[in-house]
């Protein structure tokens, strides 16, 4: 019965979708709808030369706001799901916070980590040296992508994810201990909120200047095609990049944290 239902409905859907594909292929290009006007307006009214970024951060900036909220929600949700539920007690994240707040200089911490690494875990040297090589590249590439969001493909989200990949690289090369030493999960979570708030505040600039919410008020600063141009889009790229790198980084740290807990058991 269930098998029949599954095959029946899948074949029905396949048949209809193939039929609709043929119909869709014959439709006129969607470029003649709203996109045409958007592209026409891109340079004069936003100052960006990348139409996609102009749409993401200006024409449909509100959607992007929602998108970053989705990410924020998912990160908070993962944190909620992966926490240890206790009635009125400390979460593991708080324990991390306490550990990291012990008064030690950075040098000492690094020395300790080095000791630990040498003593406990023997890491694969290929992975370690590759990571040492890749880490700075990925970080600077991420920064580049965030900076040039309005000029070339990419933007805050992509760059943020690239930077957040650093967590994964550190974990692969040096293990969980190093990750928890280097990154302060709780503070990163706070940074995510700060990033989202600054994104919102940039949106609110429009209201401050007497326009509507999300109005690109300073779009005419700088020459289109230069690094500092396109008004709030430039800054929003920053805010979103910051928010995403914090959010994804936090997500990775939490998930890696659970892996570690299982190993210990």
């Amino acid at each position, binding site marked *: 019965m269930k098998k029949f239902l599954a095959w029946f409905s899948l074949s029905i859907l396949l048949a209809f979708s193939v039929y609709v594909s043929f119909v869709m292929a014959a439709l006129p290009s969607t470029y003649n*709808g*709203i996109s045409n006007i958007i592209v026409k307006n891109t340079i004069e009214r936003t100052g960006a030369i990348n139409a996609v970024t102009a749409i993401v951060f200006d024409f449909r900036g509100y959607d992007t706001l*929602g998108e970053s909220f989705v990410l924020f929600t998912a990160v908070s949700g993962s944190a*909620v*799901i992966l926490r240890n539920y206790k*009635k009125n007690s400390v979460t593991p994240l708080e324990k991390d916070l306490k550990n990291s707040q012990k008064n030690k200089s950075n040098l000492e911490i690094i020395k300790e980590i080095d000791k630990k690494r040498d003593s406990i875990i023997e890491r694969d040297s290929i992975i370690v040296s590759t990571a040492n090589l890749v880490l700075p590249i990925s970080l600077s590439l991420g920064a580049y992508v965030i900076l040039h969001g309005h000029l070339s493909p990419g933007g805050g989200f992509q760059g943020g994810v690239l930077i957040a990949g650093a967590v994964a690289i550190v974990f692969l090369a040096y293990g969980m201990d190093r990750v928890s030493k280097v990154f302060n999960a709780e503070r990163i*979570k706070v940074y995510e909120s700060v990033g989202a708030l600054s994104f919102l505040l940039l949106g609110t600039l429009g209201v401050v200047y007497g326009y509507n919410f999300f109005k690109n008020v300073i779009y005419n600063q700088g020459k289109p095609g230069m690094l500092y141009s396109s008004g709030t889009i430039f800054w929003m790229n920053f805010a979103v990049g910051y928010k995403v790198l914090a959010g994804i980084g936090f997500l990775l740290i939490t998930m890696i944290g659970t892996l570690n807990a299982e190993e210990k058991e």
Partner: protein
Amino acid sequence: MNYVSSLPIIAIITPFIGAFLIGAISSNKKLLPAMKGIAIVSSLVSLVSLLFLTKPILLEGKVATYWLGNWMPQEQMAIGIGLEVDSFGLFTGLIITFSSFLSSIYSVTYMKEDNALDKYYTLFLLLLGSMIGFVLTGDLFNMYVMLEIMTFAAISLTAFRNNIYKSLEAGFKYIVIGSLGSTLILLGTVLIYAQTATLNMAQISALIHNNYTPVTILALAFMMAGYGVKAFLVPCHTWPPDAHMSAPSSVSMLLSGVMSKTGIYGFVRLLYMIFFSVGMAKMELLIILWGTLTMIVGASMAIIQTDFKRLLAFSSVSQIGYIIVAFGVGLSSKSSIGVLGTLGGLYHMINHASFKCLLFMCAGAVLHATGTTDITKLGGLSKKMPYTTILFLIAAFSISGLPPFNGFVSKWMIYQATYEAGYAPVTIIALIVSVFTLAYMMKLAQSVFFGELPKKLEEVKEVPLTMSITMGVFALACLVEGLFPKIISKYLLEPAAYSIYNLHNYIDVMFTKGFAEKMFKNKIPIPNMTYEMAGYWRPEAWFVLFIVILIGFIIGVGISLNFVKKNNIDTTCNFGDKYGVFTGGEKEEFAPIAGGDLFWGLRHNLKGYFGFLEKAHSGVVNDYVTWVISCTAVLSIYLFAVL
């Protein structure tokens, strides 16, 4: 008009700002009271800013628009995202903000014992903001984004108490089915974009008005199935019982009482606005059949449940069936019947929000006081929690439609609408399902609040004041909505129903005047909001009648009893065999009938039917996915065959 038009964005953004503020100060645990304050204040601010909108929109019938980023339409094309608040959106928004505000107060004490409260309030505010954003937006893709925030926040809150196995399982089922629904909605949006090359709802509805191509028909099928998942229509109703029973009650009241309304909102926008299908008999039939099926399955499943909150969740499914049936009748080509159906549906929306929130709050109060919602372990709580019992009874009577409470009025309108539209079997089923509703509510009352108090529950105390006050507000709402249907209808429902039918104005306000007429070539008639009740019902008069007779009876009895004997009720004496319950020789603690046994006979007599239903709700995720997909397939077959 300027301050009016920026109010919607304030209502949407305030909860989000509150959420991020809480996130920013979350590292300091001493600031927990501040977080609670932020949660309450932001929900209050969005409630107030929507209340400011009632005068121009609900009373004067205007439509507020707000173009984000000042991207006004150019060359009749909506290049930006526009918020558009008409009476229907505002109506739903008011339900959402009102319930959320009360829920935020309720959670202060209810969630006191849990950890990670900063994330609870963050997610709570994200849920609230996304619900308002969903209702007030005028952009199809933006609706999808808001829907996703809503789904994720709801999932995270469902799994909030992750020490219990069921919340994790429920969360997983919710995310699989819920994101499948969202995916279907996005798929529909993409297909519509491919056809019309725009994302603005007003423009889409102008472009594809009665102009069905295969692409839009498939899009309609996908979106109907998607919103069916969001509004718990059978067979896409499998996630709410799991999710609502495992979420904290302050959240499950929002999931069940309010979030289902957003699904219905999407459904109505889809049917009445984007695909203008008023007057299409085939569509009407489909929606009514779907609603009827939902009604029956929800009620039948509810009657065999043994968990307080799971029963309530299935009851929600059944009540949503009523609303969908009403909106199905609203598509009728006869305008007077259609208006009655739409009004009934809107009325039932607001009623369902009030009594279902109250019921879930009662369940939360029971859980807070006793630590369980399993009705086989509960009993006799009315002695320990008299206030909660009274409120529960009010809600139970409301949901089963006993006069003079609110459920009666809306159900009555739905009966009349379906019956006059010529769907007599649907009316009969609706009336019988109403008796089923009464049956499972009585089951709850008997097994949780009445009956014998188990030994373990001797120490139970009444819930704290903040919880009981919020519950009392909802109970009051139930009574007021029941006693003054004329006022509610005139100031809330009729503007909302009018705006649902007033497609022209919706499009014209978004673009330029006359745009809709140019696109449609003919004017769509807007039905009169007058309707005639087939009978007559004045609840306030009945209430007065009841009081008069009560007084008359008491006086009469008092006089006559003086002739016979002084009648003294001996309530002080609480010991002695005389005051024990007759148990036929059994010891009292072995005698009680647990809630699970109450309808054992009925279940046994109809074991074929109930057994089939139980087997169908197998708890395997794959089966549930299969159901949703088959529902989509059936819908697309029907729509392709009909349109």
